[in-house]
């Protein structure tokens, strides 16, 4: 039944949407948008690394994304103004990644596949990697949910409750790198951050608890994925960007409806 490429694409998209939803909530709550950017843009460097060393793409991306996420998390912990620095890292990683891929010898790499994803080319093997990675990422967040929320609210308060905020940050970092690695094939390096942030932001007006926000984000993410897939067939548009466009439309709709839901 997985022989239908449309079905595989839909399943891959749903897997990414599910993993991105709870993680995206934390990215929004902790104001880590640039963190998501830097990590996902670093994926391109991971592609270059994997291609040049003949490694699986997923492995290369996971390693480089994790390294970048750790660097950014380390900077975040310090008492320096990180906004500009994060911007440098995010865009620098993208540019250097593009250059690195173009320098690869005897490879005619289809750059747009890595920048915007190629969800319609997802294989059964890809599907296994995507769902496996998504499952691990979701499991990590569910396991540490209460602790992560506490550390997000206030690190000192978390410490006073016997938690280690640094460890929770590490869990989040790991989940982010994992999600970036599995999402690359689906939406591409440029738009992974969008799939993290937009569904979560769109879910905010309908949520009174963190848990409902994560679930709403998952639902909105799935609608965006499937809607984008359908739209890309109907209008013959690129699939990844179509998915993000639908998500952005849903966000606009949600922002318009927000006053109705505010008590």
């Amino acid at each position, binding site marked *: 039944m997985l022989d239908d490429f449309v079905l595989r694409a839909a399943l891959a998209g749903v897997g990414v949407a599910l993993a991105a939803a709870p993680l995206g909530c934390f990215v*929004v709550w902790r104001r880590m948008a640039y963190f998501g950017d830097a990590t996902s843009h670093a994926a391109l460097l991971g592609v270059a690394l994997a291609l040049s060393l003949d490694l699986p793409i997923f492995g290369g991306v996971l390693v480089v994304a994790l390294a970048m996420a750790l660097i950014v998390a380390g900077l975040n912990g310090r008492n320096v103004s990180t906004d500009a620095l994060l911007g440098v890292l995010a865009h620098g990683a993208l540019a250097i990644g593009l250059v690195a891929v173009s320098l690869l010898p005897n490879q005619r790499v289809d750059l747009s596949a890595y920048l915007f994803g190629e969800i319609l080319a997802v294989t059964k093997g890809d599907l296994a990697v995507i769902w496996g990675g998504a499952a691990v990422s979701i499991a990590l967040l569910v396991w540490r949910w*209460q602790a992560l929320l506490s550390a997000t*609210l206030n690190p*000192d*308060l978390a410490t006073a409750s016997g938690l280690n905020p640094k460890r929770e940050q590490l869990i989040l970092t790991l989940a982010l790198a994992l999600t970036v690695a599995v999402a690359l094939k689906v939406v591409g390096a440029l738009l992974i951050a969008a799939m993290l942030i937009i569904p979560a932001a769109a879910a905010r007006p309908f949520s009174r*608890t963190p848990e409902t926000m994560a679930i709403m984000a998952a639902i909105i993410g799935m609608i965006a994925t499937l809607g984008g897939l359908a739209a890309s067939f109907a209008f013959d548009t690129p699939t990844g960007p179509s998915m993000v466009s639908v998500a952005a439309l849903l966000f606009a709709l949600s922002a318009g409806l927000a006053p109705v839901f505010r008590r």
Partner: protein
Amino acid sequence: MSLISTQNLTLVLDGQTVLENVNIAIEKGEIVTIVGPNGSGKSSLLRALIGALKPASGSVTRADGLRIGYVPQKLQIDATLPLTVQGFLNLPHRHPRAVVNDALHKAGVGDLAKRQMADLSGGQFQRVLLARALLNAPDILILDEATQGLDQPGAAAFYRQIEEVRREMGCAVLMVSHDLHVVMAASDRVLCLNGHVCCEGTPEIVADAPEYRALFGTGTQGALALYRHEHTHSHDHTHDHSNCDGAH
């Protein structure tokens, strides 16, 4: 044995020594207030006591199984994070509903459980923080400028609540405060901090200490006078704003 104490505690933040050789001890049931100018290491001391800062040297000793209720200086909840008061009190450990409601009652906000944190007023917010600190029936409450941002009646009401909590629960209270008049009225003991402990003792002793006067002047905007009247009034108006005892 003291509930919590420090032994020659020295704290270094970003290469700067913020506290040096601090020895303090908090006993069961007492109210101790830390005063000191900005940057004198008050918050850092509290953070070291709860374990959020590692000592550069020296140590912090807690009584076995000590339960600490901590109220941070400020807590900003991002507007994108939906959270009810009830949900906030259940982080990171879930508590039975009765325990949550009881803590909210003790803090004087028994009717707010279902409200969104973002919708609370400043005073309500601080009381919810207090309620959270009361959840585990603490042996000691540690408050870091808990009335920051409250107007004077609000602050006074908050301190009354704390006294009531102590009466009811018998916990010790260690707080940082800028409200000197409150300090003098409500504390058993005052610690004057400025990179080190410059003086400590009952409010009367501290108010008379030259180190304290050097830091806060003699008048303290009339607040002290409320409680201490003329007999402590000094006509020596040399406002020496150098460090506490000249050791630095």
